């Protein structure tokens, strides 16, 4: 079953797109990440133009995170105060990201920069997560509890001026810290079409030191608004959001997300994190190899 994508300007197999969305959705339901970090490269690999892939993936992440946000809201897992600061940072980030994207395009280095960013981010985060998850898994096996970390948040965070109280997160820190964090993920959303959950969650835990029960909900809350904004910015600047592609991705991913959420309840959280770390590392490795190996296409065409 083939369908023509009006903005991407080529025809694709619907079943492939829905399955791709479904697989990514399942991961996002299981791990509370948007899954954009997988959608964009997979779409590009399938032959969708990179800008269209990034723009449409951000639309898909919006849909995948909605039901998650509602679920976490019901059980009080969203710190709206913290979320709002993150969203403001994120919105500024998407605007800045749009400018950056234009610059990189005219310079001709957009895809290289995107690949390097992906490799470094995924490699770094994946490594951190794997180490963390492995420690807790092996600690359970041996029966010894992991020593709780003394430090609440990173010393840099404490050195920022001005402090606000974030009740649900249990924090008394400068609002600049989440603002900067939101800003950085906003840039990534614009450049990579990712929600940034895979960066946000560890950053909230290890850098801001938020209490664990509001981390995923608040991260999803921020992702929801930032991907909405990045869809809008793409619609107004690159004009690369393919609504047909986004809808078929969404059909797959919203269904997958629900299945994933149910699967997650039956799995041990430590193993779940180890699995996510493995997936992230595999994607990072693939990206790294892509940088070093001779690419399939030496020549690329940019239309003026």
């Amino acid at each position, binding site marked *: 079953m083939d369908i023509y994508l*009006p903005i991407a300007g080529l025809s694709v197999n619907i079943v492939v797109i829905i399955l791709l969305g479904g697989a990514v959705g399942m991961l996002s339901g299981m791990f509370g990440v948007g899954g954009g970090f997988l959608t964009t490269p997979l779409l590009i690999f399938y032959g969708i133009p990179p800008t269209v892939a990034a723009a449409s993936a951000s639309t898909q992440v919006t849909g995948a995170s909605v039901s998650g946000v509602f679920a976490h809201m019901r059980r009080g897992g969203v710190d709206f105060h913290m979320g709002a600061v993150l969203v403001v940072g994120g919105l500024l980030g998407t605007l800045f990201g749009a400018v950056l994207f234009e610059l990189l395009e005219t310079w001709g280095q957009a895809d290289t920069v995107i690949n390097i960013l992906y490799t470094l981010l995924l490699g770094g985060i994946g490594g951190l997560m794997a180490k963390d998850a492995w420690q807790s898994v092996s600690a359970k096996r041996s029966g010894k509890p992991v020593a709780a970390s003394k430090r609440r948040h990173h010393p840099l965070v404490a050195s920022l001026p001005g402090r606000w109280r974030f009740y649900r997160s249990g924090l008394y820190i400068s609002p600049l810290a989440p603002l900067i964090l939101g800003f950085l993920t906003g840039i990534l959303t614009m450049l990579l079409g990712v929600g940034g959950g895979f960066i946000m969650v560890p950053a909230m835990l290890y850098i801001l030191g938020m209490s664990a029960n509001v981390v995923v909900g608040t991260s999803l809350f921020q992702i929801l608004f930032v991907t909405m904004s990045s869809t809008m910015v793409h619609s107004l600047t690159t004009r690369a959001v393919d609504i047909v592609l986004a809808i078929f991705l969404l059909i797959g991913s919203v269904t997958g997300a629900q299945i994933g959420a149910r699967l997650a309840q039956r799995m041990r959280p430590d193993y779940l994190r180890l699995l996510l770390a493995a997936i992230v590392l595999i994607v990072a490795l693939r990206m790294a190899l892509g940088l070093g190996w001779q690419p399939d296409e030496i020549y690329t*065409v940019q239309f003026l």
Partner: protein
Amino acid sequence: MIARLLLILALLLPLSAMAQSASEPKLVPDVSQRNINIQSRFTGAELLLFGAIIYPRGVAPSGQIDVAVVLRGPTRPIIVREKQKVAGIWVNADSIDFRSAPAYYAIASSRPIEKIVDARTAAIYELGLKRLQLSPTGEIETREVRRFTNGLVDLNQRDGLFAEAPGEVDITDQVLYRARLTLPSSVPEGKYIAETLLIRDGRVIMADDSVVVEISKTGFERFVTIMAQDYGLLYGAFAVLISLFLGWFAGYVFNRL
């Protein structure tokens, strides 16, 4: 349609024979489809370029006649970038601007181009992918232009946007010819011009580029493209709303199950 065309041909035949003072033959080209509509089920198209060769007094001369057909898409300015390995990673290092690169180019001929015309004629009529003139901007070495042109040709050939089909024009009784060209789903919209060349003894004796094929998005696809291009705010808002709705709806349905 073809029957009607043949009828018109038959009526015109004596007229055109009279009008033509020289003893050169005349070409009557046509195409199977003058409008190609891109719709949701569009997976590419196949075009039949065909026609008749009309000889003065209706007698085919001795000696071999060759036909070449070229289908050219709209031209546009492009940048071709070349990746090179710099410090261990592959990055875009070099680039050339071309002022007029065809979005689509396909050529079919009754025999390989090299065998039917000399190099100069082939270059003048841009026959064959090796002879495309893309008008690079700035002062650039010919060798470099060649390298980038080859890169572009190779890329587009694998995407089906450039094609070369020697020996794919069938000529029947030296009078009727036909060639089949395929268009991939990624063809851009625009006016496509079909050029037919009648070749004898290494000379182009007749060239006709009157056949135009219009490729355009229609219906829903056209609507979506216009919305995305001209009403970005509305389009984006709609994309956001639909993703919110689908996300919420899936959650609602699954909670009921």
